[in-house]
């Protein structure tokens, strides 16, 4: 989240799209309801299915799965055509006035630089023009036809109400209703926010859906303000914490980039990763990237890392250039027999991964698998699953009992980036120990083996700093947390030239802020965004529980630690005009008073940008310091464009000749079948979780109170389709895709209605993914036997939310 949960109460209009907030964030939903009660906020739910969230919103607008960019593209068109954009903000705080390079173009669904063979773009033409001095060219009148604003306007002028309605299945009246209500927040004293979750990320266009919303929020001046932002409601499994600490293959802790093979020296790597700006008003905060990265290396290799050995850069693993290593790639390679062993920690991919049939086959090719979990699940027991002959499976499976989250001490990060320290509530049963402790023990054993026997490339393992145990040899979470925060490794004097102060730190003190991290190896930090979670003296800020709220906006700065530097709302300087006066005096998040900012922790101490000498632009993490309406960061183009899901009801994309996202990876194994616009699989299907179960259900299906409420797999079917198919409520049915089938109970409902898409009636159905064959006995198997192996082009988040099925009576 750019903002945080409590801040939802400060909104005047909440668009819940790509999320079923009431069902999956029931506690957060209280703040959404509070916005309605306190500010008279309009609550809008846009979702294929009417859910418990819809029931509490002012209105629900159903749209066909996978058409979010079309819906939002129409909103951009509406905002510009009806002059709803916030001019002062757009002009000063976005790159609307920048000039797009002459060689950039967009034609019939493709941007310049596409290579159809590799399905990849060369981004060389997606650039903004610069003056001779290296500062971006701007046209503050926004009239230049090549300026970002005009290019944006042109791109989205194609998203007419007629077109969008025909693609999404949303009536024109409903489109206008949402567009009008939401764009009413494009004024200084109103705030609009967006809540999304897996309903947006689980698409082949997921990242670009979120970017489309970011463009809308920039146009309406809703970024960096109380009650605004683009807010991912992340799940209970500490998703925020796991991404902050690099659960994804392509990042290192703190969102540093994973090196690739061609970047074989530290210098090359840092040159590639460190952005440069010639504009003195752009803070370009990532110019500090090398300090963060070297401090990370120091945390890994400590006294083994020296300037001479590039702080151990060569010991980090390198990805092959152009290769990806997502979960889908992992199982694809495993299915090819190229992966021999697997650690499956706290996960149940035989239920939760797309195309679970392929996943289960892939597991049979392993020599060994180690599971660490609190219960057995369908992945660890795959060798005795449906249709599997245990005699023929060679894989040796080890299941190690792990303790549950409430049985251990540590930090937990919520979606609002609040990192909260928690304590152990109960002892784990039996031999169960924390996963951290399992890791410590296994790695200590591996280190000992390498020390004794040597082996290929032993340096990374032998040189790894690995002393995270307490005096009894147990995993010490506080020790790990301090290592993540970082230390001064030498006596250091930090000089602040502006404030004319000098502060001395002793070797062994904790680094109190990432501003103190150094390039020369004199500091360490396992994750730069967490530098500051402790004070230099060792106070754990994550454990703070102060309830003071001086702004009245619910920032609660003394409750836990929010990264970065306890800032509660990111880019908060954009809540003020160029002179530092709050746009909305009623919700004063920040104000420039005298010679300093008062309110939330500002995005940097610099004066507001009207001060041409010392002032900085508000979007300090962006190279140019401004919000990117034109954003070359994504792999499929600088402006989001609608493409159909891999599997959909249409033979052609109504927007262009490119039916699907041109940049997605297509998996080609014999188990990766696709059935687009195929009469054998005529219904759009989406998948989701239900409130009563958690993820794959591997934890909750063993809990009888929860199982009693949601005992078995069901498919939600609209009344019209059910009648057509002769299916009665509560009857057993079969749902099948070209990849697999599941049996389940039909839940015939008014909450799914047919869509009219390109003049045709299109039905949509949906199933939860919380069930598997292992428990309850005689229960249903996984919904993911149906889903395709395909994902977002940037993140490889699988497309669980849109594919094609058939439904028939059993």
């Amino acid at each position, binding site marked *: 989240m750019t903002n945080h949960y409590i801040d939802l109460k400060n909104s005047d209009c909440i668009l819940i799209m790509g999320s079923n907030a009431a069902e999956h964030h029931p506690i957060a939903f209280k703040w959404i309801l509070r916005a309605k009660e306190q500010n008279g906020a309009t609550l809008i739910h846009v979702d294929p299915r009417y859910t418990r969230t819809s029931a509490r919103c002012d209105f629900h607008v159903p749209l066909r799965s996978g058409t979010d960019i079309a819906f939002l593209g129409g909103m951009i068109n509406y905002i510009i055509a009806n002059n709803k954009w916030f001019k002062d903000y757009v002009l000063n705080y976005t790159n609307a006035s920048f000039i797009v390079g002459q060689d950039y173009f967009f034609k019939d669904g493709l941007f310049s630089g596409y290579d159809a063979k590799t399905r990849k773009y060369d981004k060389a033409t997606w650039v903004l023009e610069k003056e001779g001095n290296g500062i971006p060219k701007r046209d503050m009148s926004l009239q230049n036809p090549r300026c970002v604003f005009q290019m944006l306007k042109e791109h989205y002028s194609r998203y007419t109400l007629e077109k969008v309605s025909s693609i999404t299945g949303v009536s024109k009246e409903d489109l206008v209703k949402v567009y009008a209500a939401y764009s009413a927040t494009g004024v200084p004293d109103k705030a609009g926010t967006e809540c999304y979750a897996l309903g947006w990320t689980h698409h082949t266009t997921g990242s670009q859906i979120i970017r489309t919303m970011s463009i809308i929020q920039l146009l309406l001046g809703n970024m960096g303000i109380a009650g605004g932002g683009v807010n991912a409601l992340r799940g209970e499994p500490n998703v925020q914490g796991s991404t902050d600490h690099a659960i994804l293959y392509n990042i290192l802790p703190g969102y540093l980039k994973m090196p690739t093979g061609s970047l074989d020296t530290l210098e090359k790597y840092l040159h590639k990763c460190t952005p440069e700006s010639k504009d003195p008003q752009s803070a370009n905060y990532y110019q500090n990237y090398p300090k963060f990265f070297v401090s990370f290396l120091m945390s890994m290799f400590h006294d083994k890392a020296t300037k001479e050995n590039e702080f151990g850069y060569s010991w980090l693993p390198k990805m092959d250039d152009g290769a990806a290593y997502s979960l889908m790639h992992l199982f694809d390679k495993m299915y090819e027999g190229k992966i021999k062993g697997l650690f499956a920690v706290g996960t149940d991919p035989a239920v939760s991964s797309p195309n679970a049939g392929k996943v289960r086959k892939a597991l049979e090719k392993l020599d060994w698998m180690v599971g660490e979990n609190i219960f057995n699940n369908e992945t660890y027991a795959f060798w005795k699953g449906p249709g599997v002959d245990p005699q023929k499976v060679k894989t040796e499976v080890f299941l190690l009992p792990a303790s549950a989250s409430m049985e251990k001490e540590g930090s937990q990060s919520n979606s609002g980036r609040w990192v909260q320290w928690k304590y152990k509530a109960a002892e784990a049963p039996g031999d169960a120990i924390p996963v951290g402790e399992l890791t410590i023990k296994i790695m200590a054993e591996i280190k000992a083996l390498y020390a004794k026997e040597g082996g290929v490339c032993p340096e990374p393992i032998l040189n790894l700093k690995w002393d995270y145990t307490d005096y009894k040899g147990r995993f010490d979470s506080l020790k790990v947390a301090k290592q993540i925060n970082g230390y001064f490794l030498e006596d250091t004097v930090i000089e602040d030239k502006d404030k004319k102060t000098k502060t001395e730190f002793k070797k062994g003190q904790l680094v109190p802020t990432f501003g103190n991290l150094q390039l020369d190896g004199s500091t360490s930090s396992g994750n730069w965004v967490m530098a500051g979670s402790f004070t230099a003296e060792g106070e754990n800020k994550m454990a703070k529980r102060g309830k003071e709220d001086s702004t009245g906006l619910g920032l609660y700065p003394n409750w836990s630690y929010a990264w970065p530097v306890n800032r509660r709302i990111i880019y908060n300087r954009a809540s003020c005009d160029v002179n530092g006066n709050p746009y909305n005096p009623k919700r004063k998040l920040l104000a420039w008073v005298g010679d300093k900012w008062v309110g939330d922790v500002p995005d940097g101490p610099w004066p507001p940008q009207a001060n041409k000498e010392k002032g900085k632009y508000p979007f300090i993490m962006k190279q140019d310091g401004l919000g990117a309406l034109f954003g070359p960061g994504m792999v499929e183009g600088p402006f989001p464009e609608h493409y159909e899901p891999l599997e959909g009801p249409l033979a052609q994309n109504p927007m262009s000749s490119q039916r699907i996202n041109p940049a997605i990876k297509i998996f080609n194994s014999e188990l990766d079948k696709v059935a687009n616009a195929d009469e054998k699989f005529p219904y759009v299907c989406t998948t989701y979780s239900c409130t009563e179960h958690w993820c794959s259900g591997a934890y909750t299906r063993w809990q009888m109170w929860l199982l009693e409420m949601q005992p078995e797999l*069901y498919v939600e079917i609209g009344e019209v389709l059910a009648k057509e198919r002769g299916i009665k409520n509560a009857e057993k049915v079969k749902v099948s895709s070209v990849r697999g089938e599941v049996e389940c109970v039909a839940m015939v409902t008014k909450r799914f209605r047919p869509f009219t898409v390109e003049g045709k009636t299109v039905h949509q159905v949906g199933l939860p993914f919380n069930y598997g064959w292992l428990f309850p006995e005689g229960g249903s198997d996984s919904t993911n036997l149906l889903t395709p192996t395909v994902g977002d082009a940037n993140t490889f988040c699988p497309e669980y939310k849109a594919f094609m099925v058939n439904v028939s009576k059993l």
Partner: protein
Amino acid sequence: MKKMELVKLIDTTRCTACRGCQVACKQWNELPGLKTKNWGSYQNPPDLQWNTWTLIRFNEVADKDNRVKWLFRKDGCMHCTDAACVKVCPSGALYHTEYGTVGIHHERCIGCKECMAACPFEIPKYDRDTDKVYKCDLCYSRIKDDQQPACVKSCPTGALSIGAKDAMIKKAYDRVKKLGGDANVYGDQFVDGTHVIYVLQEKPEMYDHLPKHPRVPFSVVAWKDFLKPISLLAAGGVLAGSFLHYIIHGPKTPDDIQENKTQGGE
């Protein structure tokens, strides 16, 4: 809590049907989850039963513009002032507490099921294994120790609240005034006022299983308030009572299958 009349307010316009209350009730009262099947609804178990003292009912309706509405109602004991169950209970198992709520002494329950027939809301449920009747006691074990009932404690959105009777009734009417439309207060106007009241988003008849005009059955009024006092004077009172019972309820039969069935389960 102070010994005063309490009212629990259920504001259906704030309920997200997360069912935290349904689980919290089972947790505090140590009630088991039983095997169920999906019967084509989120509502499960399908009805209140001996192990389920509170239940979220899900109602799908279409309004006059054919727009779908999904109504959620937390069902459970209404804790009537003029409580038919207390009136008919022959063993003193059901009683009024010092908070105005209806408590239950399970050790005194003889499983006669009179309360089940009398309750206008069909709340008490019988368990054959223990030969006793069960229902919500508004967490008497918690409120006497100054704790909110488990359901109220678990509610994330403020749909459930509890407090002094007058204050809660005022809160309900204030809310309804703010909401406008068909919103209404349900509960304070009958059986001398219930100690659980609703703010309903829609008219009462839109909700499944919610009587529009709940009242203590005439048979109970006739027997307990009129004939019973006379019977105490008359030597043949017991006989008359038995006769009357026979006339109203018919002969006592072996346990009716319907009553013993744990719905949705086997």
